[in-house]
């Protein structure tokens, strides 16, 4: 007879709740929750359009807590991260944040994320998916510790053109001096809080990092501070619209992690995703370098690009053709939307060489369901530079005080 263990109750509630959950539950109107990295999160609070326009015109709160976070620390932390990711981490100063991708041996992307340099030997790495296995194996031979701290830190994105004003009213004195990708330590009412000028909207915005027990009070005070500036919480759908306009990639939408693909040729390298600017061949060795170098020499067979699609019907999942007659298939759309701010029909798409060159016109095969009758439309789609929307205010330091 083996010793009896107390029964584990986890199966009764498979999804965890973030420290903001009670506040979010009170404010959402649709009972529209989705699972995100093991947490229950709100997909739409009120209506997608209302939330989207708040991102571009007011201030929004988005609960980031489920984003997976790791603490990477130790004497070799910098060397370790520099071997892990494709950018040069040696250039990342303390108090700065860097957007990075990391690849497997064949140069295919495993995930993307951000590295926060908290100290000379102390980093936080935020990822879309759990990475402890890869991060731990990458630590072989390095004097570094990697631990997951997702549940130890509550995170809230505060984004929108009035966000700086609202956060200063909330109590973050001097926040206006923070440059893009910079972070600062603050304290509000005795509660320590880290703010970084980062986000996924392509707009002016910040992310707040705090102890979980402080989360509800911070939420309440922010909502009060932002009342005159149209503050509202948003769900993942509105955020997704903003990120497409900003040209940001979403794992499992615009690419599939090389750890998850099972089919041949479904892995993507940073060069294929238009993220070549993240790959620094001049720094010391990093995972995938030799494979990426070979790909750079041979040239990519396909590239993720922006499309400006004719008409106003989003090209969701459209196959792309070289000519209007739709004979030669040259790629497919990964993300698409009508951009209310740009007043353009935009899309992100993987396009084969040589059709991915900027200015090339390809044809999107769009299917429309019009009251249960399917119609098909060939729309001209021009390859354009990303991002689609890049307002000055996202970089202006200090931001407008209003």
């Amino acid at each position, binding site marked *: 007879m083996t010793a009896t263990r107390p029964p584990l109750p986890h199966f009764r509630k498979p999804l965890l709740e973030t420290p903001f959950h009670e506040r979010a539950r009170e404010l959402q109107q649709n009972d529209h929750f989705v699972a995100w990295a093991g947490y229950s999160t709100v997909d739409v609070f009120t209506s997608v359009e209302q939330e989207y326009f708040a991102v571009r015109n007011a201030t929004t709160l988005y609960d980031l807590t489920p984003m997976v976070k790791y603490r990477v620390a130790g004497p070799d932390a910098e060397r370790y991260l520099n071997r892990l990711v494709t950018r040069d981490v040696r250039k990342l100063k303390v108090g700065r944040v860097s957007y990075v991708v990391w690849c497997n*041996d064949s140069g295919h992307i495993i995930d993307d994320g951000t590295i926060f340099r908290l100290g000379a030997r102390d980093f936080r790495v935020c990822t879309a998916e759990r990475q402890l296995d890869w991060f731990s*194996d990458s630590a*072989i*031979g390095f004097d570094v510790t990697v631990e997951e701290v997702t549940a130890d830190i509550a995170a809230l994105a505060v984004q929108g053109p009035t966000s700086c004003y609202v956060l200063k009213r909330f109590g973050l004195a001097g926040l206006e001096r923070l440059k893009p990708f910079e972070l600062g330590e603050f304290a509000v009412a005795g509660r320590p809080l880290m703010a970084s000028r980062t986000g996924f909207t392509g707009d002016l915005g910040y992310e707040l990092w705090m102890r979980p027990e402080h989360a509800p009070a911070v939420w309440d005070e922010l909502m009060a501070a932002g009342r005159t500036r149209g503050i509202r919480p948003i769900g993942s759908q509105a955020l997704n619209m903003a990120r497409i306009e900003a040209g940001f990639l979403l794992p499992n939408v615009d690419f599939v992690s090389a750890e998850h693909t099972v089919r041949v040729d479904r892995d993507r390298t940073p060069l294929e995703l238009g993220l070549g600017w993240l790959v620094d061949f001049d720094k010391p*060795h990093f995972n995938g370098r*030799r494979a990426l170098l070979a790909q750079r020499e041979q040239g990519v067979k396909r590239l993720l690009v922006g499309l400006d699609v004719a008409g106003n019907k989003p090209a969701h999942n459209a196959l792309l053709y070289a000519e209007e007659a739709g004979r030669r298939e040259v790629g497919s759309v990964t993300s698409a939307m009508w951009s209310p701010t740009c007043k353009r029909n935009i899309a992100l798409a993987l396009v084969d060489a040589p059709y991915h060159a900027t200015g090339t016109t390809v044809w999107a095969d769009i299917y429309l369901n019009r009251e249960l009758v399917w119609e098909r439309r060939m729309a001209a789609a021009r390859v354009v530079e990303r991002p689609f929307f890049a307002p000055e205010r996202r970089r202006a330091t200090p931001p407008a005080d209003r």
Partner: protein
Amino acid sequence: MAAAPAGAGYDAIIIGAGHNGLVCAATLARGGRSVLVLEAGAAVGGCAVTREFAPGFRVSAAAHLLHQMPAALIAELGLAAQGLEYAATALPTTALDAGGEALEIGDLAALGRRSAADARAWPEFDARLRRFARLLHGLLAAPPPRLGTEAWSDKLALATLGLRLRLLGRREMRELLRIIGMNAYDLVSDEFESGLLRGALGFDAVLGTNFGPRAPGTVLTMLYRLAAESAAGPQALAQPKGGMGALTQALARAATAAGATIRTSAPVARIQVAADRAAGVVLESGEEIAGRAVISNADAKTTFLRLLGTEHLDTGFVRRVDHFRSRGVAAKLHLALDRLPTFADTTARALGGRLLVAPSADYVERAWNHSKYLEWSARPALEITLPTVNDPGLAPAGRHVLSAIVQYAPYAPEGGWAAQRQPFTDAVLGVLEAHAPGLRASVLATELLTPADLEREFRMSGGHWHHGELAFDQFYMVRPVPGAAQHATPLAGLYLCGASCHPGGGVMGLAGRNAARRVLAEVAR
């Protein structure tokens, strides 16, 4: 003669003067490359050395018989001219019974006295296994092909393998494919009823591996051993005069004669990298030596994780190297004896050969059970030689040396070797005494080399004789790991030439020769 090193350093720097390193050095130097061999120890030879373990008593430190180095390679390197002589060749293998009886393997008359059925079955079994072994030898002799490439050499190698298999004939091919994934225990139990024969065959299948005869894949290791022996030629199971060190001394002379430089007591601290290429080495003394190719005779873990450093490699590759199983379970016992021991019922001829204490396959399997739980075998299986029978010069006049491979001794037993060394030695001596009454009283000195000792003395990760387990998942195209299975490594200019490579361990020399051929093709003069 090889060119003198230019200002840019040597054409090739070889880390480790074990037999593979020396074969590699000799082959490269004969190919006109400037070669420097760096040996950490005070003498060349690596594991294949003869050394004094008690005043006046010398013994081969690890492997004590030469039975796997191809005769063609020995001839190619002219080792006879370099002083390699044999004290004895074509040595017999004799299985010892607990009851004091002995059975020479292959002696049909003796086998018939134990079992008429076994005597009838033996010739066909033996011939078939030797046929399979000859086929497998073709695999051992060349670097394995890569899968999924467009290279003709790879396609040809795969096609040749398929053709060789097909040429066995339908019945024999089917039989090979039936048994190759099996365990040795089942195979020998199907064929024979004599426990002594089953034990001897089962033990030979697992000698030097972390397996018992019931472990899947042990027919492969059995065939592997036979394959290497079949290439070694009729002299196989030979005892070099002066011990295994005489072989590596001859190899060193052959390398030097061809123009290679050998430095001993020159441990390498790390491999230097410049512009994503191996550029040379740094010695522990701090001395830097430049080389256009660096060839490591060290095992894969030592080479990649310690000498090169993981920062020059990709995570997936490092993960595979880290998972390479290399925990040894074979220990070595050396006894200095004041007289020749008497093993019951053995002939003088048998005493000069291999004596096996593996009275049944179950005995060997039970011995292995202990090591699974980090215990040493209470009743270990032994391969015993008495090298002084054929080569009296290894001990003072009238005295003798007993050299035994002892299984199983875990790398890190529960309680640690400091506490377990004496009880384990006593257990081995107890088994020896049971087979050779009076032996214990004749012991003048004892030396036990555990896997931990072998790791320390010969710088082999885990103290594994083959630098890594020989098993399907670490064999041929995936040995030591995908990405380094054809001697080249992910780092340009860095090569492996040791037992971590195909075809693996044993004093064979093919890994060194094959690595040299690859470097000759890739590194111009």
